[in-house]
């Protein structure tokens, strides 16, 4: 029962409510950071860590935080987690810290994180919130990395920083190219997700329509009449 529930939460975060492709949240950092796959992957993982930590803490404190001050309380918690992440990255992964620049502190105002805190973590138990945080974060990481791979390959001719070809189209490294790739990816994701959902429904309907394999009813006997009586 629990496994099915957790599976549904994870599927929602990864596919049904994919923050980038379905809800179109956090667009600013998506467009800015997706010039290379490595940057996109780093940004995605950073958001995942913040989402996980903030969701867990908010879920733990959900019965203590009064409803009237929940938003400022969430913002303080998220800002604390982001500041912590900045310190850790600056200390141990300075290259990623440098490449993320101003978008690392801007994770505080990333609407994906506040959105999940308000819509999910503030109402659900800790484990559910943790799974939601990880799934939403990984969904965002997948989306960002996918866009990053396309833009890096077409714009710079490289794959995760490794030069593959000299052919490059400068347009894809610009803001306009980012919007173009983002739009195409959304269309592709929605198309594939809809097809998968359609196939799942058809399969379900077939199962429902299948006649039940029930044999003929047993004849009424004297003993069964007595039991009824």
């Amino acid at each position: 029962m629990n496994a099915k529930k957790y599976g549904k939460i994870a599927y929602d975060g990864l596919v049904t409510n994919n923050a980038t492709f379905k809800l179109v949240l956090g667009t600013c950092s998506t467009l800015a950071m997706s010039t290379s796959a490595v940057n996109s992957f780093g940004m995605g993982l950073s958001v995942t860590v913040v989402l996980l930590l903030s969701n867990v803490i908010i879920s733990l404190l959900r019965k203590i935080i009064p409803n009237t001050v929940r938003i400022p309380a969430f913002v303080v918690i998220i800002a604390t987690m982001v500041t912590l992440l900045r310190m850790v990255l600056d200390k141990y992964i300075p290259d990623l810290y440098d490449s993320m620049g101003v978008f690392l502190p801007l994770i505080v105002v990333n609407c994906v994180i506040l959105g999940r805190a308000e819509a999910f973590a503030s109402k659900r138990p800790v484990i559910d919130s943790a799974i939601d945080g990880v799934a939403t974060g990984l969904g965002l990481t997948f989306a960002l990395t996918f866009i990053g791979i396309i833009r890096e390959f077409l714009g710079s001719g490289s794959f995760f920083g490794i030069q593959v070809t000299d052919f490059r189209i400068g347009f894809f490294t610009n803001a306009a190219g980012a919007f173009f790739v983002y739009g195409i990816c959304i269309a592709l994701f929605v198309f594939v997700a809809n097809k998968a959902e359609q196939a799942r429904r058809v399969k379900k309907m077939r199962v429902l329509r299948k006649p039940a394999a029930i044999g003929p009813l047993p004849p009424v006997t004297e003993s069964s009449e007595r039991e009824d009586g």
Partner: protein
Amino acid sequence: MTVKEFFKSNAFKSLAVLIAIVLVAGVLLAICNDIFFVSDEERFARSIAKIYGAEVETQEIELTDAQKTYNNGQVEEAYLVLDDGNYLLHTTGYGGYSGGSGTVTLWVVIGCDASEDGSPQLTGIEKVVYDSNDGQTLMSNFNTKYYEYFTSQNEAIASGGYFTAIKGSSDPLNNIVAGASQTSNAMVNAVNTALACFRTVISGGQS
């Protein structure tokens, strides 16, 4: 409302919870700041490792405030690299994004040969390494290709030239910086500041 009523009210509870969260967050961050503190020496060692890939011996060059200040940039520090005789300048270029007030700080390695009179003779830019920025949102657009541009013009630089900023969208460099032309302007200014400092101060008036 009496004092007793106030302490029992929702307003007090909200205030108390919010203050408690802020205090706990503050204490946690203060402790973590101490644990994850990165000292200036560590930052310098990191920059050296990024530039040379190994530890090198350096000697700081003393500069006055006037010798550090230029029209479009500022020299933060200057070092003589004892291992290869080159000069390492830490410079900040002005004129970046954010209304022209943004800056980019770089490490610039200036290649030198000793001239007949013993003074250092500029041979070109050996390497440019990014350090930090102020307000440059598109900093991640700059890949190695742009940094390599600074090391590919050594003939012109050795004969007294400076780098010029991107003039318009038709400039071939504009594609490489992915539209972040103002940030690239600050980077050009940082490199030019290093060149100006070397020519006017370190090499003793070389043109």
